[in-house]
């Protein structure tokens, strides 16, 4: 009798425990499934992200026309890549990763940034130091140490290939958006493509006789959208002034001076990039800025201004000596491949003047532009001769650039999109 009851109890509880056991097993299974989903989903995402980096590495180091060979088996998953070219200097990378039944997609838009997106971009600092009183607007990059003397101010993000070098223990540069190390991208650009573009829809000034003489061009931009220009081949005389609409002179905005120099000033109403090449002549490839060069619609007042000017010199951009010039404005994105922004004979100016720059300065090196002496009253160095520049970055260059303005070599991602993940029901 008692044995039967015990048997019934054992069987009853046994059944009960079996039910609970099953439920616990189900709970464990769901918990494991839940964890496995998150793990697999995360892995798929990491693999898709890795795929993007594979594509970027190949685009930047192998060829800008690299095409993927799918699939890429990585860490137990498969990555499928597709690279499209939506427009010049842009790439869209689509990376789809499959891992243990989960799929994730990452779509990245990458572009070759324009050099104009930097307020300042230099190859080397040499013996020049960013010093107290200097305020750098926009992004700042150097393929070198960034040398700081005292308390220079960097308003935009700073990148350097080597680091920040302080002059002494009293130097405290201000980095408003921090600084970080970044790989080098040299201040070099092959202007051949610009030459071709100028031939096809722009304006080319050159010695067409085959004598390979230097070509000099003077251009005064007028606020009504016209440009007054004359030119000189070799040691010949200057041509008579011609006045034409800028849009007629260079419909695509590109003005190319082959083996020559250009002298510019005025007020530009429209868009243009002026290029000077040297073709081995040490006295060619220079852009001379004679006096104020500004936009007809000032971006300081009208941020929607569509006037754009790019200056690209295979040698340097130079402010020629003119003791009577005084203060002046320079509004442009400037690319100086073998020099910087040079103020000729700066120490010979009778006083210190202001050079009001709006735009970007990209150069091989930083140039001194003024002579400084110690002021015991102000207890700081003050300029006495030459030009001290007040530089502001043109925010429009975040999104646009003068026509055909040089781009950096590498593609960098500007937009990451992550696909939606289907979350399974676990209950």
């Amino acid at each position, binding site marked *: 009798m008692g044995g039967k009851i015990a048997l019934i109890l054992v069987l009853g509880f046994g059944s009960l425990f079996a039910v*609970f056991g099953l439920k616990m097993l189900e709970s464990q299974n769901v*918990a494991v499934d*839940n964890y496995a989903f998150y793990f697999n989903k995360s892995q798929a995402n990491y693999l898709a992200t890795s795929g993007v980096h594979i594509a970027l590495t190949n685009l930047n180091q192998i060829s800008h026309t690299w095409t993927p060979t799918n699939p890429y088996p990585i860490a137990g998953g498969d990555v499928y890549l597709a690279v499209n070219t939506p427009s010049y200097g842009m790439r869209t990378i689509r990376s789809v990763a499959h891992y243990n039944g989960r799929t994730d997609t990452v779509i990245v838009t990458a572009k070759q940034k324009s050099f104009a997106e930097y307020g300042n971009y230099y190859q080397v600092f040499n013996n020049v130091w960013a010093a107290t009183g200097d305020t750098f607007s926009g992004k700042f990059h150097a393929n070198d140490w960034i040398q700081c003397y005292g308390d220079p101010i960097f308003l935009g993000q700073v990148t350097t290939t080597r680091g920040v070098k302080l002059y002494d223990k009293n130097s405290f540069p201000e980095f*408003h*958006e*921090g600084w970080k190390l970044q790989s080098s991208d040299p201040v070099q650009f092959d202007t051949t493509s610009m030459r071709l573009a100028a031939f096809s829809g722009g304006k080319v000034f050159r010695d067409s006789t085959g004598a390979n003489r230097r070509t000099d061009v003077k251009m005064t931009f007028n606020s009504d959208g016209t440009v007054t220009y004359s030119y000189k081949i070799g040691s010949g005389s200057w041509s008579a002034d011609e006045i034409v609409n800028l849009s007629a002179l260079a419909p695509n905005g590109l003005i190319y001076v082959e083996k020559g120099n250009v002298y510019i000033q005025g007020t530009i109403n429209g868009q243009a990039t002026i290029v000077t090449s040297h073709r081995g002549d040490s006295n060619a490839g220079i852009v001379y800025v004679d006096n104020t060069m500004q936009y007809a619609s000032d971006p300081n007042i009208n941020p929607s201004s569509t006037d754009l000017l790019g200056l690209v010199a295979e040698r340097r951009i130079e402010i020629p000596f003119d003791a009577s010039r005084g203060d002046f404005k320079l509004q442009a994105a400037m690319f100086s491949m073998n020099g910087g922004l040079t103020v000729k004979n700066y120490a010979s100016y009778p006083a210190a003047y202001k050079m009001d720059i709006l735009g970007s300065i990209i150069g091989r090196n930083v140039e001194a532009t003024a002579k400084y002496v110690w002021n015991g009253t102000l207890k700081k160095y003050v300029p006495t001769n030459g030009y001290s520049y007040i530089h502001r970055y043109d925010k429009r260059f975040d*999104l646009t650039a003068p026509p055909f303005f040089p781009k950096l070599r590498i593609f960098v991602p500007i937009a990451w*999109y992550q696909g939606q993940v289907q979350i399974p029901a676990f209950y």
Partner: protein
Amino acid sequence: MGYSTLIDVLGSAIIGGLLLMNLLRLNATVVENETHFSHDKSAQIDVVLIATLIDRDFNLMGYCGDHSLITSDSTLSYGDSTSIRFFADIDNNGSYDDVYYYLSDTSALSHTPNPRDRILYRQINSGTPQIVGNNITEFSLVYLDGLRNEITPPVVYNPNVNFVKVAFKVEDPFAYDDNYAQAVWRRLTVTTKNLVKQ
């Protein structure tokens, strides 16, 4: 029927009683374990659901289908230690959406036994706030600049923010023996790729 039968009955009653007591104790343990498993499972599922959503939304911070609209300094409109508001093209239609994550106070879930649980809301543009999780007990946001230095909140249109660290904790609203099942998710650094200035 004699002493031996009586001893049999008493003996079996004692053994049966001991067995019954053991079975009852075992039953209680099984019920407790089952409850713990069940609550743990719920907490973990909630964590995965919330983390999956946060993973995606935060990775899209600053993204816009029309890349010409992407600017580095107007992405994060507001951020403090428990709420964040940013622009992201959630539906990838080429225009920015205003995404707002915020936490209720504990009174919103005062009817649950857990005194710490709150609701995590996600609001897109001017739409009705959606409940992302209703058993959040901690939701923490930390903002870092490009050098991984912490930026003291609140941050308002601060272009220095390059990274956002996110952590949250989920607890079951009901306790067993005053123990609330809990699960924690912590992403040391959500590298919001569209925030990082190249």
